[in-house]
């Protein structure tokens, strides 16, 4: 088991290396001189030269990459040009807020999506099934930025149940306040994923429910609820887990849009501002951190997947 985990961890190294090269190169792929791109057309020759030497652009490219990687490995991710602060503390602080939002959304999506999918499959063809299919279709056709605004208007501005923006009330930092602020953005982010999960759960469950052993279980008189949960759902769980894992990328990406709607102080708002300001060190920091997070969540899903199925041996 330990050796399996170690091997999987080592297996991510080429991916991580590739990610780092791509993120590093993003600055150099800009059309024209990166220093000019960052400082704009009005920059003086002195300021351009200063920035070039600060970013190490006057060095050969492999030296630049080696220096950048050494910095990344030792916790020095460069300085944000716009915010005049270290990149790593900036992105790290914001990543926490994004992960809180992503985790809450995932919980809601899995809870509602999987339940809806199971109910839908058990009553396949009926009215419940058809309304569940329609609901999920609407769910994943709703752009998160539109759903967010609708929820803001209805539950924030009209009914006044939930705060419309931010993570805490000014000066606050307690848990109940956070939860209250979390509801609308988390539901917004969850809608698309939940809808997709409902659809996938339904089709996986339908397939499992048509298997011989399910018929046998029914024939020998096992209660319908037990057949659904113990016989069918447990076997449908593995494909469902995979789909949940695949959605992590959507959650991290979708968070960018949802954060913008709700002024959630996460990594997405930071990324968008950095791109608009052409603050490359910060853009690189955000991209690197999100990509690495994504690679590791994928690894975790894979491991969870092998653990949940006794037929998959980890050798």
């Amino acid at each position: 088991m330990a050796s399996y985990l170690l091997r999987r961890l080592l297996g991510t190294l080429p991916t991580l290396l590739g990610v780092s090269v791509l993120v590093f190169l993003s600055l150099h792929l800009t059309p024209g001189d990166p220093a000019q791109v960052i400082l704009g057309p009005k920059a003086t020759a002195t300021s351009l030269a200063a920035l070039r030497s600060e970013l190490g652009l006057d060095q050969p490219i492999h030296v630049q990459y080696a220096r950048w990687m050494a910095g990344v490995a030792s916790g020095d991710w460069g300085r944000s040009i716009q915010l005049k602060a270290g990149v790593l503390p900036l992105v790290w602080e914001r990543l926490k807020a994004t992960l809180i939002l992503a985790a809450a959304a995932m919980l809601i999506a899995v809870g509602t999506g999987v339940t809806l999918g199971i109910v839908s499959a058990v009553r396949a063809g009926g009215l419940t099934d058809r309304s569940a299919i329609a609901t999920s279709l609407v769910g994943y056709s709703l752009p998160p930025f539109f759903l967010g605004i609708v929820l803001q208007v209805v539950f924030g501005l009209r009914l006044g149940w939930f705060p419309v923006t931010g993570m805490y009330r000014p000066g606050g930092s307690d848990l109940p306040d956070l939860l209250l602020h979390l509801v609308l953005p988390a539901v917004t982010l969850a809608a698309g994923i939940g809808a997709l999960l409902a659809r996938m759960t339904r089709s996986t469950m339908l397939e499992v429910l048509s298997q011989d052993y399910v018929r046998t279980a029914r024939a020998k008189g096992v209660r319908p609820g037990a057949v659904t949960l113990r016989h069918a759902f447990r076997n449908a769980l593995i494909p469902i887990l995979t789909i949940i894992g695949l959605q992590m990328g959507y959650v991290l990406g979708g968070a960018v849009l949802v954060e913008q709607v709700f002024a959630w102080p996460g990594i997405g708002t930071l990324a968008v501002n950095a791109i608009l300001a052409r603050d490359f060190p910060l853009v690189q920091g955000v991209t690197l951190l999100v990509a690495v997070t994504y690679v590791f969540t994928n690894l975790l899903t894979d491991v969870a997947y092998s653990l949940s199925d006794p037929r998959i041996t980890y050798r």
Partner: protein
Amino acid sequence: MTTRGIPRAAPGATQPASAPPGSPAETPAGKRRSFWRVFLREPVAAVAFGVLALIVLAALLAPWLGLPDPTRGSLVDRLKPPLTPGYPLGTDEFGRDLLSRVVWGARVSLGVGFLAVAIAAAAGVALGLVSGYLGGRFDFWAQRFIDLLLAFPYILLALMVVAILGPGLLNTMLAIAIAGIPYYVRIARASALALREREFVEAAEAAGASTGWILVKHVLSNSLSPILVAATLDVGFMIMAAAGMSFLGLGAQPPLAEWGVMLSNGRQYLRVAPWVSLVPGAMIFLVVLALNLLGDRVRDLLDPRMVGR
């Protein structure tokens, strides 16, 4: 779904019935006609098609519809609610007619979405087919590169491309197209891998056909169904992604009438005039919903294994 009151055809009945030899349905034009007839037989798909056709038609005919200038308004008429005489969908913060802006915006939003799919599909399918058919070292490195791109969440990859190219409508379209390429590479490669082993491809090779000819004539033409299904389902997603980029301020820029920009600008007036945001938002939703319904229908018809999933 929403086939209330109308008996739903039994699964399988929606498959295009094989036409008897010599019947008009056997000619290419006849085949197309019968595909459309079967395609629109399901009421939900027919309604979705109608809605989409109406929006596309309005977008194409925008200059001849006699709508007011979408970028000019009268400040006297600012923030008028929908159903105000003269402004069926109301006006925005500059008194611009929202109906006109939504119709003109459709040109931009739909155009960007369709073009992005076309670019992503063309590039991805070309790379995927060549990679899958040739195999070997080229395939190995192409796939490692695609794996690398897939290590980034879609939106992050698109954001990275925008960061490189700089914000703007054209760059955003390229960005969402580039980020979409791996999706098509995967589908086309899988298809090419399977086709490579088929007798008719081997026969063409034995007959001395060139690689390019085999790729286009045999591999591409037999891979079209899964690619078409994927592309249909992708258009809605791309329209949403393009509007999302504009919403973030990275794509189209005001005063251009584009749905994402309109939605974003209207947010300042949510308290007093929520329709400024909700009207363009509802349009994006409607189009994406219609496209998803049509995509499901195309998949049911072209990929019989997926019926009822």
